[in-house]
Each structure stands twice: as structure tokens, then as C-alpha cells.
């Protein structure tokens, strides 16, 4: 039995909430709502809880839309495999919100470029970046607005953290916001 080891890891890592499995719109709603309820039991700062909830939704949509393991369940509706974790962070008395999914290795450079660009923006540049992205005409074949990472970073106290790693021959992408 690995139970003891798993519980010990969860406690030592200060994990408050974890989900690992299939993600689709209805499951995203269930996961985000459950995470919000759990956080409201522990955290009195409602603004902080809302920021975590909203960042989690944005991250989970990214998992559904961009995971390598996604497939179409019906017209325009997708299902993917992914994980999300909320941990208590020592930074700023906050919480770490993490999401993980598989990616096509060829997309790694673009993901890195997008996050690095957002992380490097100062306050006035951030405003301009947002306006430029909103003014762009949305391409009919894209599901997002190119603003997902930006909206997560708006709610994060620190620059977004990310990591790429290989597990059983699959390439994974992990993103973390500290809120």
C-alpha cells in the first residue's frame, strides 16, 4: 500500500486541493467550484479566493484546449487529461495554483516565449499589451483570445512560474501562479 506515502507527501507539500483526471467543461466547473468552497473554509480574504478561482478556471481551460491528450467529445467540445493542485505557499502568505498537462514538444518554445513576454512587462507595458491583444481580430480557428496567461498573471503576486519535463516519454508543461 502506498497510502501512507501519498498522505505524507500531501501533508509535507501543504497540498490543500488536488485533481488529476479527465477535464471537460462540466468537470472544470465542478473542480473550480469545489476548490473555491474548500478555500473559503480556510481563507477569510474573499478577494484572494476569487483570484485563485479565476486563475484556476483560466488554467483549466488551457488544459482542455491545448493538452496533447485532448480529443473532441462532440462538436466544439473537448476533453483532455490534466492535473491541478493548490498548495499553501510561504510566499506572501499566499497559495500556489498549479496546472499540468502534456504538450507537443514543438509548442514548448512558443509557450515559453509567451510567458516570458508577460513576465517581463512593467505596469504601463501591461496595459498596452492588454489593449493590443483585445484589438486583434480573433481568428475563427482559435478558441482563446491569446490572453489566458496574461489574465492569470494579473491575479498573481509574482511572475508566473513554469516548467517543462518528461515523464514516460511524454513532454509535460506545468504552470504556477502565486496568489
Amino acid at each position, binding site marked *: 500500500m502506498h497510502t501512507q506515502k501519498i498522505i505524507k507527501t500531501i501533508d509535507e507539500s501543504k497540498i490543500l486541493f488536488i485533481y488529476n483526471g479527465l477535464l471537460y*467543461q462540466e468537470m472544470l*466547473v465542478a473542480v473550480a*467550484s469545489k476548490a473555491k468552497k474548500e478555500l473559503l473554509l480556510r481563507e477569510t480574504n*474573499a*478577494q484572494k479566493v*476569487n*483570484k485563485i*478561482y*479565476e486563475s484556476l*478556471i*483560466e488554467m483549466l*481551460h488551457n488544459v*482542455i484546449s491545448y493538452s496533447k491528450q485532448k480529443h473532441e467529445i462532440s462538436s*466544439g*467540445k*473537448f476533453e483532455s487529461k490534466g492535473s491541478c493542485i493548490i498548495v499553501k505557499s510561504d510566499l506572501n502568505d499566499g497559495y500556489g495554483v498549479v496546472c499540468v498537462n502534456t504538450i507537443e514538444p514543438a509548442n514548448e518554445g512558443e509557450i515559453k516565449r509567451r510567458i516570458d513576454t508577460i513576465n517581463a512587462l512593467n505596469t504601463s507595458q501591461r*496595459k498596452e499589451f*492588454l*489593449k493590443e*491583444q*483585445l*484589438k486583434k481580430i*480573433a481568428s*475563427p480557428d482559435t*478558441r*482563446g*483570445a*491569446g*490572453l*489566458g496567461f*496574461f*489574465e492569470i498573471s*494579473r*491575479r498573481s503576486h509574482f511572475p508566473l512560474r513554469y516548467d517543462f519535463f518528461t515523464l514516460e516519454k511524454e513532454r509535460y508543461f506545468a504552470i504556477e501562479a502565486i496568489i
Partner: protein
Amino acid sequence: MKALTLQPTEYTPQIILDPINYRFVFAGESYPENTFEFYEPILEWFRDFLSQKKDMIVEMELTYLNSSSLKSFYDIFKFLNAHAKEFNSRIIIQWIYDEENEIALETGQNMDEDFEHLTFEYLQKE
């Protein structure tokens, strides 16, 4: 012209576009899976409704807009702004926000800066 009303779901807002009672409301959370598909009929409704000069108040009580919903509302406001400019219509956006939701207020203020022919009014929820 027919009203367009949608009941709220966990991830889409209540929408009332009612030309008879002259109420135009968006309220709740917005993070549908296919945002552009969801909001296209809304933009179409405004295109039909605003084919001539009309003054209106749009009540925006959205507690959360995900990134693609933000883009969709930007496009709707862009159309309203163009209409207000062309017909000299007075279009008021009532941006209703919670005191504890600084992101929602900031989102309204960012939109406000881009659309000079729309009048934004900020109302804090009681």
C-alpha cells in the same frame, strides 16, 4: 424586434436584451467553452437593434469574465461605440462591481479608456 433572454448557468451570465421593456442586462459569471460562438448571436442582436439612432443603458454586473469573454465584450463595446459615434446616440455602460473585486473594476476602467463615445458609470454593489 424580439427580445433575447438567456437564463444564467454556472458558466454563462443571465442575458436580457429586451427592446419592449428597454432593459439590457448582463449578470453573472462568463467562462463558456466556446466563447465566440456563445457571444456571436448577442453581437448580431445588437447589430439588428441598432440600425438607427437609439439611446440605451447597458447594465453590466459580471463578477467574472475569462480571457475570451473579455475579448467578446470588447468586440460588443467596439460595435456600440461605433454606433454611438455614427448616430450620436447616448449609450451608458453601467459597470456594477463588488467592492472586493478590484479586477472587475479595473477591467471596466480599461474598456472605458478605449471607447470614447460610450459613457461608463461605476456603481458599487450595496
